[in-house]
């Protein structure tokens, strides 16, 4: 892995390799992509609904989320993103963005021009396939969110969201201690689960009272992962994680 040291796109490669193998040549091609590193403040937009996508931001540190507003102004969050993930692969080849991508926290991103990325994935079939798999896994996560909001009760929805977050953070090797920082307010959790903030608050309290998790503001520790997974009806199959990166760290 010496090859990828000192290039921030290393993180993206690590993420892609959780789903699809990349040869050394493929990795070099990704590392050769042009990019600019930018720091974005909390609430800053990576892209807004209706914008023409000109670049793809790779999240290097911090957290981001996708959302849409309804006609009456209420907000629905559709995905949370963690370091190493691409924020705009969903907009590749599309003329205008159909949703907003905003920073949850202060974040550092590597901005890749869209033209360079499109050229890479069209000219190189294996890199193309790897990036396509990445977007397909994202699509699978959207499907699971349809299910989560459509058919699970409030307690399950929140537990499911927490399980997914922990699992993904773990798969990226970002929480070796089993402690997670979930940088979301109760209002944002409500917007991600189709609930009210009051309801979210009540559920979080109950999950702690029942001994499933501990929480200190944004810091979460799972006390009983198996029970939490059961409450959340969480089955990681939809995340399609494969073990090319040397296995997943076990959740404690």
């Amino acid at each position, binding site marked *: 892995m010496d090859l990828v040291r000192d290039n921030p796109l290393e993180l993206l490669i690590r993420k892609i390799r959780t789903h699809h193998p990349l040869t050394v040549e493929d990795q070099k091609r990704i590392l050769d992509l042009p990019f600019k590193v930018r720091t974005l403040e909390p609430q800053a937009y990576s892209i807004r609904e209706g914008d023409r996508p000109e670049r793809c931001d790779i999240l290097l540190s911090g957290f981001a989320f996708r959302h849409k507003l309804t*006609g009456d102004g209420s907000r629905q969050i559709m995905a949370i993103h963690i370091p190493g993930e691409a924020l705009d692969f969903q907009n590749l080849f599309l003329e205008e963005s159909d949703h907003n991508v905003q920073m949850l926290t202060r974040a550092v991103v590597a901005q890749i021009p869209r033209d360079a990325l499109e050229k890479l994935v069209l000219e190189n079939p294996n890199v193309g396939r790897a990036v396509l*798999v990445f*977007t397909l896994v994202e699509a*699978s996560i*959207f499907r699971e969110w349809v299910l989560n909001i*459509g*058919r699970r009760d409030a307690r399950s929805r929140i537990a499911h969201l927490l399980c997914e977050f922990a699992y993904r953070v773990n798969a990226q090797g970002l929480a070796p201690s089993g402690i997670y920082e979930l940088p979301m307010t109760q209002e944002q959790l409500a917007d991600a689960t189709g609930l009210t903030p009051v309801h979210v608050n009540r559920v979080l309290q109950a999950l702690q009272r029942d001994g499933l998790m501990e929480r200190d503001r944004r810091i979460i520790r799972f006390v009983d992962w198996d029970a939490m997974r059961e409450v959340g009806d969480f089955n990681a199959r939809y995340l399609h994680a494969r073990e090319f990166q040397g296995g997943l760290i076990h959740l404690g």
Partner: protein
Amino acid sequence: MKRGVREVSPRTVITRRDRRLDQSSFLDPVLRRWGRTVSLTDQDKEALAALPWTRRVYPRDAYLAREGEPTSICTVLLGGFAFRQKLVSDGARQIISFHIPGEFLDLQNCLLDVADHNVQALNRASVAAIPKAALLDLMTARANIRRAIWLDTLIDSSIFREWVVNLGRRDARGRIAHLLCELADRLRAAGIAEGEACDFPLTQEQIADATGLTAVHTNRTLQALRKDGVISLTSSRLVILDWNRLVEIGDFNERYLHHSV
């Protein structure tokens, strides 16, 4: 979709000669859709036409793919409707999307090893089943086709996101109106709807499972839309009497369908 559709049972292999005769019925709707977004060369079209495929016909509710099972084919819907669904552990069903002729039902399965959801025929449905290895080879060989297929999956994704919004932040009336707008709009774009009328084989239970509502609530909401003169819905036929009103109730903005990428 009538032309060239010969009903054969699943797993019947159509000979190469037959396939040539039948090619147009498989390719036309796909090419028409892709033609809006990608310019395919003659070589691209020839490569597509050379794909091996078999026609399969499924009765109503039959499974085309099951969650957890390994996948070996990708399917294009030729006739009829289909839907994707997932179950929660207590057995409740959530429909994730509906599909109309000319659409791929499971493109993700050509790259993901195991199906993460179920695909079912909504009514009698005929599909072209393509071995996924052949489709992958084609995508590797031809960048235009890779782009077209990719675009399809990105638009699928956009529709899933909109459904998250629909379930999470719209009331019952809004959710159902949005679903009706989406289906009517997609059928129109595919050239399948006739003006404001279209085939609409969804049951109330399926509408309920797609909108996260109960069957009773769905029934009441559809009745209200009828009573208000917005739609007419009788025996598998939907007529939208007041499109602007339905769009307003459903908070529908077609941007997410990316018709003209």
